[in-house]
């Protein structure tokens, strides 16, 4: 993804934030121990506020248990 929801190019920090978000989503699909599974989901819920707030992405995450 190279642009936000308004079509503006992503800044360097926005690209990194989006990468963290994507990595957390990917981790939710992994078979992780409870300590990791629950905290990754909690982190992803907060990270969603960042990408949604900055208009980088907008989606719902219930399929990931988030």
């Amino acid at each position, binding site marked *: 993804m190279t642009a936000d*929801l308004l079509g503006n190019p992503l800044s360097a920090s926005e690209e990194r934030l989006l990468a963290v978000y994507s990595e957390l989503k990917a981790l939710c699909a992994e078979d992780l121990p409870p300590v990791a599974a629950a905290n990754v989901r909690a982190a*992803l*819920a907060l990270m969603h*506020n960042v990408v949604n*707030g*900055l*208009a980088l992405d907008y*989606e*719902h*995450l219930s399929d990931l248990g988030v």
Partner: protein
Amino acid sequence: MTGSSPYWNPKTETLSRESLEALQLAKLRRQVAWAAERSPWYRRVLGFSGLDRSSLDSLSDLRELPLLTREQWMSSQFEHPPYGEIPTIGGDGAIRVHTTSGTTGKGPLRALDSRKDWAWIAEMWAYGIWGCGVRPGDTAYIAFGYGSFIGFWGLHYSMEKIGVLNVPGGAQTTETRVRQILDFDCTVVASTPTYALRLAQEAESLGLDLPGSSVSRLILSGEPAGSIPQTKALIEEQWGAKAFDTAGMTEIGTIMVFECEHQPGGTHIIEDHVYEEVIDPVSLEPLGYGESGERVVTSFGRGAIPLLRYRTGDLVSRVPASTCSCGRGFDIYEGGILGRVDDMKIIRGTNVYPRAIEAIVREFSEVDEFQTVITREGVRDEITLRVELKPDWDLERWDGLAESLHNQLALAHEGLNFRIERASEGELPRFELKAKRTVDKRDAPIGALPA
């Protein structure tokens, strides 16, 4: 930038109207697609209307979708217990359930939240509390019961997120709360407007100096009174602090409007997260800037409850963002939530709004609490203002006060005759959450009417 920005989210709060609407449309398309795919209710309603993400060329296309009412939601919940057909998940996919108060006798609405939705709920509060100047280093007292009613739950988590020291004020007496506010040297207090006044009364009776305390900001929510100028002025005077109005609802899960530090006489709509329409409650036609009508909300927040075109029953008047000098692109509800579409009373042909009565009564600093009682005597409706005075007030001045109240209420209501009665000390109810100061006995069973 972190502490110096006046905006929680500078990127979206300062968008132009054109960009803001483009963002809303992008989110709306995805929310409509999500609702059609996952919510049994919306799959049926959207299918019937023929509306889908590809047919949404503009925000106004959403008007093709029928309005959702609370009654429909309640019926769905009743027919498909416990949560109805609107949610996209069941209890096993959620982490919380909150309810409305259920005071209508129809039972409460049950609102589910996933982890992500709950995080969003706190996020919305962050726009409001950051926007009115709350910062890391503040200490907040949340005068709230922390029960199944959603109330200030989101604000609590939002304060934590910002880095504010929270003092949860649940399950405390009013006296204990006042003492804790002072003992913890709190700088911010969150409560309903009515309860802010109640706390101030308690402090006065205990001989405690609230205006001299560290409290500099009050976050008000739960009642329209937070934007009634006279009530707000009284609260600010009694606390020696600035009061900021917010408004939300269980159906959304959080606030959708807040008053910024510039105090423009209204509340900004958090437009990157909600799309709000103002309609004529009878014709259902859209209304323009400055026209009073019913607020209809489409929320982009919750995925578990994708709320589209929900009739809130709130009476509002929308004005452009430029009305405020804060630089936000978010439009404003002038005067906040003006009341409920259905809270107008007609007394012998005259329209009477609780907000208008409160605005007049709050001009009289002698009044501690009040209640409006409407009765039917034979074929004639009567309206009585019951007034409880401050404990140390000189009763010999009652006749003059009653006459002034009578005259001002009549002047504001086409000469309508308000009876003014003095209630004894402690007789009228006090409220911690939403105040109910209007008692309409006209629909009461005959045996329940006063003699």
